[in-house]
């Protein structure tokens, strides 16, 4: 029958809202899948759910399984309830869940089966490094534009403010941070204007933790000859204005999880947080465009994070709850 002629794909990724090239978790995870599969000559494919609902996610996972997937990568916290369902629906399939661990829709029940490997990233540390580096490098007027107040983005933002604080204390300078969520992950003239406004009032660098929306911030920075800090992946190639990027090791961690799977050491049933200690987050120093801040400085603060001499808080309800004496944070709109 025709069905048999349809090709199968051993590795699958189901995308979250946004496209496969969202400059964010979809893209980062996808590159991990691609890299591993290409290197090992394994078939792979991605599936885009018809809409952002648990039902559609479950269905897309079903489709992937139908298509012969042995491992399904699901990037984004929105997948938590879908994977919660799928893990028992498809016990023979392995899931790599990023940014979340499986739970029910109402957060009442958390349960992880042995076929699910859940990965969190210490975005607050990544954000911290970016904030720290920026202030050490001499910037005192910073901005943070988050795509949306989802947990990972919030962690980036809170870390960023804390990093700025530590550096400001070190240099004994005062720093201001404008802080806002755009409610968008897509490029738009509106974001460009917003960023242009910030730059016109003296903001020197904006940390754009907003996927594709960051591209509009870069457009504004280009025009204002101001700076941007990228997010998730190394975004230096997108614009000359990108001084560094607060990355999280999406690609490497997915790659690693797949390596484990084929080595029969899949870490099913575990929830990990990839932090500095596990090389999960950091700044791409090779492509960074700092003047004062340098590799030595980076290593120094990095080690402090690893050693725990600096602890970055990640569960404040609001950014203003963080005590940062040297930094004045002005939040725009609702948090």
């Amino acid at each position: 029958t025709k069905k048999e002629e349809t090709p199968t794909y051993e590795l699958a990724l189901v995308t979250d809202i946004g496209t496969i090239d969202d400059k964010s978790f979809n893209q980062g995870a996808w590159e991990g899948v691609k890299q591993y599969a290409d290197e090992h000559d394994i078939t792979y494919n991605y599936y885009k759910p018809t809409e952002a609902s648990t039902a559609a996610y479950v269905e897309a996972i079903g489709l992937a399984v139908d298509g012969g997937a042995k491992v399904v990568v699901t990037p984004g916290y929105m997948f938590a309830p879908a994977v919660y369902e799928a893990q028992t629906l498809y016990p023979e399939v392995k899931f790599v869940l990023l940014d979340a661990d499986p739970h029910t829709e109402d957060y009442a029940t958390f349960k992880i089966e042995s076929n699910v490997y859940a990965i969190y990233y210490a975005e607050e540390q990544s954000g911290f490094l970016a904030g720290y580096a920026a202030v050490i490098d001499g910037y005192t007027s910073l901005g943070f534009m988050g795509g949306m107040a989802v947990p990972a983005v919030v962690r980036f933002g809170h870390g960023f403010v804390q990093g700025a604080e530590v550096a400001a204390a070190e240099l004994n300078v005062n720093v201001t941070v404008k802080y806002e969520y755009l409610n968008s992950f897509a490029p738009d003239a509106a974001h460009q204007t917003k960023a242009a406004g910030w730059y016109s009032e003296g903001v020197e660098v904006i940390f754009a933790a907003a996927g594709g929306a960051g591209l509009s911030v870069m457009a504004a920075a280009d025009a204002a000859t101001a700076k941007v800090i990228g997010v998730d992946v190394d975004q230096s190639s997108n614009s000359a204005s990108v001084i560094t990027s607060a990355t999280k090791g999406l690609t490497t961690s997915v790659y690693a999880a797949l390596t484990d799977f084929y080595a029969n050491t899949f870490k099913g049933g575990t929830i990990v947080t990839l932090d500095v200690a596990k090389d999960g987050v950091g700044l791409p120093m090779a492509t960074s465009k700092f003047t004062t801040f340098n590799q030595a400085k980076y290593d120094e603060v990095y080690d402090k994070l690893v050693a725990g001499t600096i602890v970055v808080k990640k569960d404040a309800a609001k950014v203003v709850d963080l005590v940062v004496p040297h930094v004045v944070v002005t939040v725009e709109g609702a948090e």
Partner: protein
Amino acid sequence: MNTDTMIFLIRNMVPFMIPLTIVALGGMFSERSGVVNIALEGIMVFGASFGIFFIYFVPDLMSPQLMILAAMGIAIISGVLFSWLHAYASINLKANQTISGTALNLFAFAFHDFLARLITKTGTEGVSFKNVFRIEKIPFFGDIPVLGDLFFKNVYLSTFIGLGILVVASFVLYKTRFGLRLRACGEHPHAADSVGINVNRMRYWGVLISGALAGLGGLVLIIPTTVEYTGTVSGYGFLALAVLIFGQWKPSKIFLAAAFFGLMQVISNSSGLAFFTSLGINKYFYQIVPYLTTLIVLTFTSSKSASPKAAGEPYDQGKR
């Protein structure tokens, strides 16, 4: 409000205002000829796609300004070709003009993604480009105090092209034989027909000009506002339609309406400026301000609508 804020607002109106003007003028030509064009959004997407593909595939072959001109040409041509479909359906087939408009919108979004994935090196829908098109300062004019800062520094060629189109469009519409005939076709096609004007041909011109301008407008909207094109113009085509209606189908008023809307968009996104934060108004109101003010203004200005009488009606010679 201090002058800096004012300058900021005026300067930043431009990226909204120019494309809105261009596209709404396109819509004007179409509707003035008698064909409603709700496909403006799709044509923008389509035109921008090919303009950006061009920039993506042939970088560094020529000087930036030459390249942007070439890209604009390509956006215009692709807009024209694409709008041909709308013209064919609504003129030759006498179809409901909403149908082909909707179809074109759907098609353009899908087609960009489809093609981008097929032909870009990354195999993704986003097509990134290096924005090398901004002109830092126009010699001489840039040195004029205030005005220089406002209009002659950090500008794009498209700004001046947009203004040129405005002038040309007004001239063509009101001062030429073509314009007179076009308007007649949108108001009373039977009258035009009875004096030997080929109504269908005029309508083709109207729709194809709208295609040209919408295609161009799409590219012009994208270039200054991002560094990667993902196949969307975020509803600006529909806003251009609103600007067209708001502008009463007249070039000068369209320009004012686009300026008004552009200003409101900038204000909407400037809640973070010191002046606006000092007002202490909730961000929500800034967000809805362009739409709400448009509604309010329309409420008080719509009682006499100047919409072309025959717009939206297929021309049927036999129907009286």
